[in-house]
């Protein structure tokens, strides 16, 4: 990443320490969960751990309710990501290609679901679902998730379009390719990694979303909803630790790779959640 402002100066001791403190504050708490997956203590969060055991991983594997929740979360996140990929790419292409009235408003509209507190989207959807008597189903969850996943794909793809040279498309057309061929051989290879980055972020967002989900899920339990129920009424503490770690690991990899891809493109894509 080229940096214009790197001064090459050394930071003072105090600054380095404060920066390090901030960084530790951001990351150490998660490691505590990993530590607690090994505790033999079922009823409290005693520290230091009274011993070490690996049995909770086995116990978690045997739980059918967890498997159901995990499957539901994976299905929801996959479909929501797919919808977001299609809608986000279409919107980005439209905004990039053409100047039209209200073009600015598109970005504004797409960013709203991620910028407004989740509870607003949640209640809005809940009361709409209620007033049309739509039964809660796996689709009501997906529809809610797709609203805030679209902007992630849109941002990534639009940023990529802006860096792509329009002359490539013109050259392709001049050489006799039709629109579909141009898309297949010129546009798609250019935006492929942006789609990948956007898709992975969208997947991670959907997979661990809980606020909107509590309003659109009805009686269904996604993995985050399961964790949330344990937060307010803890019954399976050790298993919750294992599940929390699992969610962290499942979302970490896509986020990490998406960030790497974006960093290589040397532009900051994504942003506010």
């Amino acid at each position: 990443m080229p940096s214009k402002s790197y001064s090459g100066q050394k930071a003072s001791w105090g600054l380095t320490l404060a920066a390090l403190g901030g960084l530790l504050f951001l990351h150490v708490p998660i490691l505590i969960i990993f530590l607690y997956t090994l505790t033999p203590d079922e009823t409290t969060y005693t520290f230091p751990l009274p011993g070490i055991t690996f049995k909770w991983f086995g116990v978690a594997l045997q739980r059918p309710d967890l498997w159901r929740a995990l499957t539901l979360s994976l299905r929801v996140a996959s479909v929501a990501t797919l919808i977001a990929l299609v809608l986000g790419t279409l919107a980005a292409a439209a905004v990039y290609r053409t100047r039209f009235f209200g073009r600015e408003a598109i970005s504004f509209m797409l960013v709203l679901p991620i910028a407004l507190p989740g509870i607003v989207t949640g209640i809005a959807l809940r009361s709409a679902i209620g007033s049309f008597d739509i039964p809660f189903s796996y689709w009501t969850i997906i529809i809610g998730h797709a609203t805030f996943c679209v902007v992630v794909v849109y941002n990534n793809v639009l940023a990529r379009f802006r860096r792509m040279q329009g002359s490539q498309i013109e050259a392709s057309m001049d050489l006799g390719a039709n629109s579909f061929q141009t898309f297949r051989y010129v546009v798609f290879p250019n935006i492929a990694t942006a789609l990948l980055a956007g898709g992975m972020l969208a997947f991670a967002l959907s997979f661990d979303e809980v606020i909107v989900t509590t309003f659109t899920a009805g009686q269904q339990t996604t993995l985050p909803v399961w964790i949330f129920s344990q937060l307010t009424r803890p019954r399976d503490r050790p298993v919750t630790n294992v599940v929390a770690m699992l969610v962290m690991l499942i979302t970490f990899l896509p986020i990490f790779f998406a960030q790497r891809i974006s960093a290589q493109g040397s532009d900051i894509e994504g942003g506010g959640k």
Partner: protein
Amino acid sequence: MFQRISTYLYQRPGLVLWLMLGPPLAYMLVVYLGPLFNLLVNSFYYLEEFTGLIVREFTLRTYAQIFDIANREIILRTTAMAAAVTVVDALIAFPLAYYIAKFASPRLKTWLIIAVTIPLWSSYLVRVYAWKLILAKEGILSWFINLLHLDGALNWLLSFEGIGGSSLALSPIGMFIVFAYIWLPYMIIPIQTALERVPVSLLEASGDLGAKPIQTFRTVILPLAFPGVVAGSIFTFSLTLGDFIVPLTLGNSKFFIGQAVYSYQGTAGNIPLAAAMTMGPVVIMIIYLLVARRLGAFDAL
């Protein structure tokens, strides 16, 4: 066949635009903006308390209810929390953002930016859960405080009406720590972006003109970073206002806005009041987004 469709479309750019824009636009209008507008409309209805039915007539009485004593307390409590979280986040975020923007080598910078961005996307719920473990009475933080023989100070702090509670895990102090932790990346990134735009030559000029480092910091860097602090503040403030997971997890019987909204729409069935109470954070965020768009900040968002 493809050739003919292609030619047909090429001659009609308007049609192509609608084909591309139509699906996302229709989706967002029907699934998002429609319900959001419906929520706004609902905030102007009211709940008839004897019948428990929602009266669909335009009225401002639901908004007036927001300022009932009970709700006023909730709003004050939440606003105070949001303000405190914002101030502390700015203080924690600034050194890290400053370090990333001005002192980290290009290679380290890439990694630091990733390290700051990952928590922004990663599971918010799991990150709240981590603090349930840390703040528990028998947990690691209490253990550490005992180790330092500061347990007396902690108990003294917890004994205060309003911020204290039976343990850190069930007190406003605990919530405050968790909020500060959860929203910290939202403060770091805008400040870092703002500092990134300050050219090194400006700092050198300041030094050449005889300013001590501390003077350069106060009179050059701080004012230029301020827009970033404001942008970050809006996130931390609005996110704290609207959150209900943290109060439900770590709070006690004293409600916060998010929690109140959650219970109004749930058990109480009072959608108008729930809707009216969410409008505060909504208006703050929309104004912010409009200003940010004016300033061209959207391209980076």
